[in-house]
């Protein structure tokens, strides 16, 4: 396990380097001038040039890159060009809403989707199966923002049960936090539920065709025991995998959801920073989300050995 872990972490280094180089070059080789954005509407060319120099944007690309990587290695993510705040502070401020929503979404999705998938697989080709599959295809097909607006219209505006938007930290007011987290989490969960339910169903269908399931039935076990004790755990690895790779989808969904529900999270920060050409922030955020993605998938890979004793690292 430790050697495997170290190997995986080492393997992540070139991946992150690819991300770093890609993002850096993308930002520097395309048109865009943070100075013009910073200075506002009435700035003269002369003033822009002065600001560019003071931001260090006039140096050669490789110098900027080396400086950035050097800073990263010392844990310095740089300072926002626009708001002049350390990137790390910006991220720390914006991190929690995203983490909370993501956690609630994943929990909700797993709680809803796994039983759905199990039911569909068990009742293969029945109306339950068709209903679950239809629902999951719908979850894939309707854009997140459309789902978001529909939920707002229904639950917040027409029924008035929940607030329309916003975010309140759970430490500040848990009830208010929960009330505001429900709709975004539901919105985001629509894709995730679809994804997990489909995978659970497919994986379970595979497993239900396996010999050991037949053995379990031959032992005279009840269907429930066959399904949950024998089949589900064997079907779990692909489901875990899809939770991991679906994390990318979640991040994309977060960007949109945060925008619809006005949640001050990392997704909006990234989009805002891209539009504002706030290079250090964009770089840090894309590197960070990539790192999280790699990390989540590493943890999921490691969790396989808990699910399946054949997998040993």
């Amino acid at each position, binding site marked *: 396990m430790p050697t495997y872990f170290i190997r995986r972490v080492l393997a992540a280094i070139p991946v992150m380097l690819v991300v770093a180089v890609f993002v850096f070059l993308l930002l520097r080789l395309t048109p865009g001038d943070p100075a013009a954005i910073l200075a506002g509407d009435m700035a003269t060319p002369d003033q822009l040039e002065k600001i560019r120099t003071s931001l260090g944007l006039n140096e050669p690309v490789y110098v900027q890159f080396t400086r950035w990587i050097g800073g990263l290695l010392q844990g310095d993510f740089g300072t926002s060009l626009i708001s002049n705040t350390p990137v790390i502070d910006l991220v720390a401020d914006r991190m929690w809403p995203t983490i909370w929503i993501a956690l609630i979404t994943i929990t909700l999705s797993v709680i809803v989707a796994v039983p759905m998938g199990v039911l569909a697989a068990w009742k293969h080709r029945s109306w339950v199966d068709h209903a679950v599959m239809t629902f999951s295809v719908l979850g894939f097909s309707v854009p997140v923002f459309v789902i978001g607006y529909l939920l707002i219209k229904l639950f917040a505006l027409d029924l008035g049960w929940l607030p329309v938007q916003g975010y309140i930290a759970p430490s500040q007011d848990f009830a208010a936090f929960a009330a505001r987290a429900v709709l975004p989490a539901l919105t985001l969960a629509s894709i995730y539920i679809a994804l997990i339910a489909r995978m659970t169903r497919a994986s379970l269908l595979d497993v239900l065709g396996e010999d*050991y399931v037949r053995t379990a*039935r031959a032992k*005279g076990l009840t269907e429930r025991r066959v399904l949950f*004790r024998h089949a589900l755990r064997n079907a779990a690895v692909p489901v875990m995998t899809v939770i991991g790779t679906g994390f990318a989808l979640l991040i994309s969904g977060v960007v949109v959801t945060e925008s619809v529900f006005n949640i001050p999270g990392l997704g909006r920060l990234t989009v805002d920073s891209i539009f504002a050409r706030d290079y250090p922030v964009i770089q840090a955020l894309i590197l960070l989300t990539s790192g999280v993605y790699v990390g989540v998938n590493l943890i999921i890979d490691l969790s396989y050995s808990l699910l399946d*004793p054949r997998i040993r690292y």
Partner: protein
Amino acid sequence: MSLLEIDNLTVAVDRKNGKTVVRDISIHIEPGELVCLVGESGSGKSVSSLATMGLLPKGALKVTAGKILLDGENLLDLSPSELRDRRATRMSMIFQEPMTALNPVHKVGDQITEVLEAHTKLSNADKHAKVMDMLKQVGLPDIERVAGSYPHQLSGGQRQRIMIAMALILEPRLLIADEPTTALDVTTQKQILKLIKDLQREHGTAVLFITHDMGVVAEIADRVYVMNQGDLVEDGPVMEILATPKEDYTRKLLSSVPSLVPRPARASVSKKTALDVSDLNKFYGAGRFLAKGSATHAVQDVSFKVTAGRTLGIVGESGSGKSTVARCIMHLIEPTSGGIRVGGQQISGLSRRGLKPYRKKLQMVFQDPYRSLNPRLTIEESIIEGPVNYGTPKAQAKARAAELLDLVGMPEGSADRYPHMFSGGQRQRIAIARALAMEPELLVADEAVSALDVSVQAQVLNLLAEIQERTHVAILFITHDLRVAAQICDEVAVMQRGQVVEYGPTADVLGAPAHDYTRSLLTAAPGRDWDFPNFRPVAA
């Protein structure tokens, strides 16, 4: 009253006007009796047993007529929960592949205990004691450790013992064993067969034993039912069936079983050495960064020679390294060290390009006829691929392909068809034709008949012998089946754990084995005392 009575059972595909796969069969088993249900693939023998357990795949197959009476109770009338109650307590089942039949994510001890949990109200201590007792009965060593192991940590034989323990722990009156030894090596098979027989005697369990292997039948059966394509062909006490089969099908089946007595030696036709392997070594899994575990020495100092027109058999159990040798010779993997000479030319260590001229001298026939032909190419395209690669004009290659297809006994018009339109035996013929198209000096046949039914197997073996006579091709024949080796090989090399332990003319090696391992292999061969093709015991 019979313990199990299957009356006029018919099973069909669960669809409107679905094809019937088992037609109107009747089987009865008396208490304490061991009955073999024998047949080739597609005979419906497994389906009948699954129907008995109520385990037919839902939505795919269903019983359309007949009764299945266990102790006089029609199992087909029971509700699902009643049927569940009968399983494991009154009837249980073991399967062909113990690796897949055991749940990989639970400890085997727990999987056995689960049977007790489902059907009894014993205390935990009692359950544990009972499980341990059962594990002891099936002859497992170090039972506490075994009980705490996962299936993948056990050997194939141990896993099958676990399956048996699980099946018999509640002392059911009927055990259905579906090809329980087919996936096992011959020495392990012998032990498992003995175990089943012993337990059957001790507990008075009736056994319905499903197999395709006449040797196994001869070894253990009290009574035999023969099935063919969904129909029951013949039944009777084992000696009657083996000695005086009434039906043509049964006779054909029996006469297809190769004899374990080596065939008379053939005169050598040439002095030319087709293949000379010297001190071949192969290590697996060495040299990976941060990889743990040491390398496996899969092939260890293996040397042998094959002369033109002769067949050398390499026999051994799984993991003996016999296939690795074949793959090294074919350059599908790189040998770690040692020499491989084809027609006197050293070919080990040559680059891909350098190897090309020698490739055509070596051709291979693979084990699985379903995977060795590209499903998307017509038969002709597959056969002409090699010659065209070596510059034969297409038209000429096609003409040659037609000749070869005729030679291997394929019907006319096969050339333009696709592999899936042919049976396994036919595909293996095509694969042989493809290899022959290259006019090789050496044909490597890696378990080339193992996947085939015994009647088809006999035909393919005859074909190979015929071809060898005509073309004087040298054959390296890799097999685990001593019967096949005895009938086709001029010389035999026996491999165990990567080493050749005995090497010599077939008559010597299999007739008067010098090495213990060879002897144990021979003793383990089921039905070795019966000469099947001649319907009589082996002359002493």
